[in-house]
Every structure is written in C-alpha cells, then in structure tokens.
C-alpha cells in the first residue's frame, strides 16, 4: 500500500496486512515528530507527484533488494510531537534484504519526494526546513 494521508496510521494492522507466508522478516521504519524545541510540524506534499515517486521507489527497492512487499504511508497536515509521520514496511524472505530495502526507501524519500515540513513552536512561530 502506498499512500499520503492526513489520518493516523494503524501500524499493527498494516504490518499484519502486509505479511504473507513467503516472508521471514518485516523491517519497519517509523518516523515520528521529535520534540527538539517544537510543538508540531506542518507537512505539505505534492500528493500526485509524491505518490508516483513513492510507487517508483517501492518498485526499485523490490527489484534491487528482492523484497516481497513494500508499504509506504506518509502523513501530511499538522502533526504534534510524538505523532507518526511515516511508516515503511519492507517484507522479505531474510532479514538482510529487509534492512537494505527499508533503508533504501527512506533515503530515496528524503532525497527527492516532494514533501516539506514547517516547524511550529509553542509561541506560534513557524519556519520551513531548507
């Protein structure tokens, strides 16, 4: 499943849905809003292009690392500290491919997928990340 959505992500359900009996490993990356002096982060995405990019990245990760399944869900909108930003699940026969594939996906997302964040502080100030 590839999605960009405002709604929170049911990570346990997603892991269960993603699984099949050919897998021996699921490597999951969960990105969360870290409190480094902020109150929240506003995420903005070019959803159409971002979904196309995530679909490409999932296919590349599957091909390069021999994955059995890939799920990528990224949230947009206003997320408070502690909330889930992103969940990636890489399912594979063995752990090596799962770790390599999951890592590939997050690095590619950070490199070029059109999603941006703006920090919101407790005082209401806000600042886009460069």
């Amino acid at each position, binding site marked *: 499943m590839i999605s960009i959505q405002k709604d929170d992500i049911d990570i346990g359900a997603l892991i269960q849905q993603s699984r099949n009996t050919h897998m021996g490993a699921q490597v999951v990356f969960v*990105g969360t809003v870290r409190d480094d002096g902020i109150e929240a982060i506003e*995420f*903005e*995405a*070019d959803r*159409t*292009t*971002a979904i*196309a990019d995530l679909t490409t990245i999932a296919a590349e990760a599957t091909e390069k690392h021999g994955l059995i399944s890939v799920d990528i869900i*990224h949230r947009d909108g206003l997320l408070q500290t502690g909330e889930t*930003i*992103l969940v990636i699940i890489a399912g594979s026969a063995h752990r090596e491919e799962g770790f390599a594939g999951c890592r590939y996906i*997050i690095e590619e*997302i*950070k*490199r*070029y*997928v*059109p*999603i*941006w*964040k*703006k920090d919101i502080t407790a005082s209401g100030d806000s600042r*886009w*990340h*460069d």
Partner: protein
Amino acid sequence: MRITIRSFARFREIFGTEKLIETDSFASPKTVLSLLCKEKECRDTLFTPDGTLHPHITITLNGRRLSTGETDETTLADGDTLVIYPPVSGG
C-alpha cells in the same frame, strides 16, 4: 499562450499556490519563471546573480522533472503546467 505555475511550501508562500502566466509562444520554462515576479527578493529566490536557476530548485513540466538543460531549452505549449519545488524535507 497560457502557462499555469504552481508552487509548494516555502515557495507557495512567496509565489502563491497557482498563477496563470500569459506569454509568447515558444517560451522556455526559464523564461516563464522569470516573468513570475519582478521584485529583486522574489527573483533572487529562483535565480542566481548570473541569471541561472538555483540548482537546489526542482521544476516539473506536466508532472515530469526537468534537468537544468531542459528548463532552458524546452519549448512550452499552451496549457502546460510548471511546478516549482523548494528542497524537500519529508520522511
């Protein structure tokens, strides 16, 4: 011809979510972007002092990313949509 220019995040706050630019036929993306704003601060957001687009900016034409050469040399058609991305920070 009419070209739609959309932008996101930091650039949306500068250039607006969506603008229509009327221009001569055969204009390149770079030419159309140079018509987007006239104030120095606004132009400096997109262009270096020697008039090239900042390398960290991504331009898409109808959803496809353009290389630096393509932003200078592609010929736009009526109804095309350009999108301007600042550096991404998702994930």
